[in-house]
């Protein structure tokens, strides 16, 4: 009996010990933020998780004040109202405009000067949805040219050592142009949030900036974060996925025509406008997900890249998107700069080989899986 009692008490001690949550890494803070025209959920872990989560919110609010089209004195609002004149901008806006220029040069389909056309369709916020006439579209297409946007850094030219001086950055648009950074700003915020999390020694975090996900570290149980890709064919069901990604230290961004749309005359018009046609892109793709590493890379702005390329590749279509994927190599890691999950309108899920072992098709979706190299 004494031996039995000893065993039972030992078992009790072990069970109680296992149930404890003394590990500071499991402390958690979760806050919801409405900003940048979307709802965001920031979940951080670790001893400094509350401070980290609110520091992330501060970053988002600060960037929104600079990038918003509706905040009157934002850099973007002042640029759009300047009639082509040069405007002093912040270092963040200067940096993001340069990154946008890089993406625009690299990939057709992404253009921040699409703003007047998006507004004409009612997708800029505030306006009613409508189908513009062909004449109106053609007239507005003449304003779409990101090559006309110029950025200047006086200090970079005159004194590279004083590059951090924000007062010396300026930008100008072409006459009549307007820009919208909505297709790239959340990615830029994700890049900055990585630095905030590092500064706060956060061991893990799950940052969802309205569909832009930063899977930072791993889950508390040591496994990768499980990130579902919404099934575009069942967009009104929140548990309906095309598949699930297992991600650690990664950015992932999805663009799809099912996210924001309206119907007129029995036809659906979505919000991703093709800069070549001025109309919603019709490329045969239902959604594009771009995944990139958050740390092991030569370029420190993979979040921005994922955001911009998810839109660009949606416009390009499957064939050109895969061709583009093959052409983009990380010269340090000697591997593709990003990976893709393409959901096609004809019922296929196309996954690039770097994600093959990190993607699980949702069998209930009815899609067929293809892995490409």
């Amino acid at each position, binding site marked *: *009996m*004494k031996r039995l*009692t000893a065993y*039972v*008490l030992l*078992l*009790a*001690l072990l*069970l*109680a010990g*296992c*149930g*404890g*949550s003394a590990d500071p890494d499991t402390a958690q803070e979760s*806050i*919801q*933020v*409405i900003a940048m*025209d*979307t*709802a965001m*959920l920031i979940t951080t872990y670790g001893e400094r998780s509350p401070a980290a989560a609110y520091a992330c919110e501060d970053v988002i609010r600060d960037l929104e004040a600079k990038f918003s089209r509706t905040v009157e004195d934002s850099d973007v609002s002042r640029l759009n109202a300047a009639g082509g004149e040069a405007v002093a901008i912040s270092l963040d806006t200067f940096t993001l405009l340069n990154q946008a220029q890089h993406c625009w040069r690299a990939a057709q389909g992404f253009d921040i000067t699409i703003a007047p056309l998006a507004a004409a369709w009612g997708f800029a916020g505030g306006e*009613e*949805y409508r189908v513009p006439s062909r004449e109106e579209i053609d007239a507005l297409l003449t304003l779409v040219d990101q090559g006309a946007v110029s950025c200047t850094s006086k200090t970079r030219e005159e004194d590279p050592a004083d590059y951090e001086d924000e007062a010396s950055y300026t930008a100008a648009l072409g006459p009549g142009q307007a820009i919208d950074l909505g297709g790239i700003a959340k990615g830029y915020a994700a890049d900055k949030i990585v630095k905030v999390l590092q500064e706060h020694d956060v061991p893990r975090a*799950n940052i*969802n900036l309205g*569909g832009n*996900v930063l*899977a930072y570290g791993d*889950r508390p149980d040591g496994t990768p*974060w*499980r*990130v*579902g*890709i*919404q099934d*575009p064919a069942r*967009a*009104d*069901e*929140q*548990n309906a*996925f095309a598949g*699930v*990604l297992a991600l650690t230290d990664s950015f*992932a*961004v*999805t663009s*799809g025509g*099912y*996210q*924001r749309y309206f119907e007129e005359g029995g036809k659906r018009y979505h919000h991703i406008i093709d800069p070549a046609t001025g109309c919603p892109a019709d490329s045969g793709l239902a*959604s594009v*997900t771009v995944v990139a590493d958050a740390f092991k890379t030569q370029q420190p702005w993979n979040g921005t890249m994922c955001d911009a390329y998810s839109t660009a590749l949606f416009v390009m279509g499957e064939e050109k998107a895969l061709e583009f994927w093959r052409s983009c190599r990380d010269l340090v890691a000697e591997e593709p700069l990003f990976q893709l999950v393409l959901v096609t309108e004809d019922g296929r899920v196309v996954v690039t080989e770097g994600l093959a072992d990190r993607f699980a098709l949702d069998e209930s979706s009815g899609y067929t899986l293809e892995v490409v190299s």
Partner: protein
Amino acid sequence: MRAFPKLRPTAWDGLVVLCVAALALGTALFQWRGGSSGALTAVVSVDGEETDRFAPAELLEAPRIYSANGYTLEVCAAVRGEASPLDHRNSGGEAGIRVSRSDCPTQDCVHTGTITRGGQSIVCLPARIVIRLEGGTVAPDAVDAVLG
């Protein structure tokens, strides 16, 4: 060395041991199953501030109306895939909540459909209202975040 006297355990000793073991097992199970997940609860926030909290079943009695920033929306009980909020009692489907109507211009909150599990949310950006489900049983295949 003098031996300790032999003690005969009584029924009370056994009861104490069983209570300790049961308490430890209960504590461990509570922690392993997610600790404080609790019952499924809908949390409504406006501009990031919590304004209401209720059990989804309360919507069976009457839908709830929320107004903010010039827009009004109605939240009702629903079953995923069904249009009528009260048809689900014998359907065997997954019960949840949805925005049944809204006067916002985008209607994204209405298009979101029915949410049924903890972690899911419905967002009305024009009204800056977020309705989020918290707690409930966490499915083993649950995702941590959703793209799209």
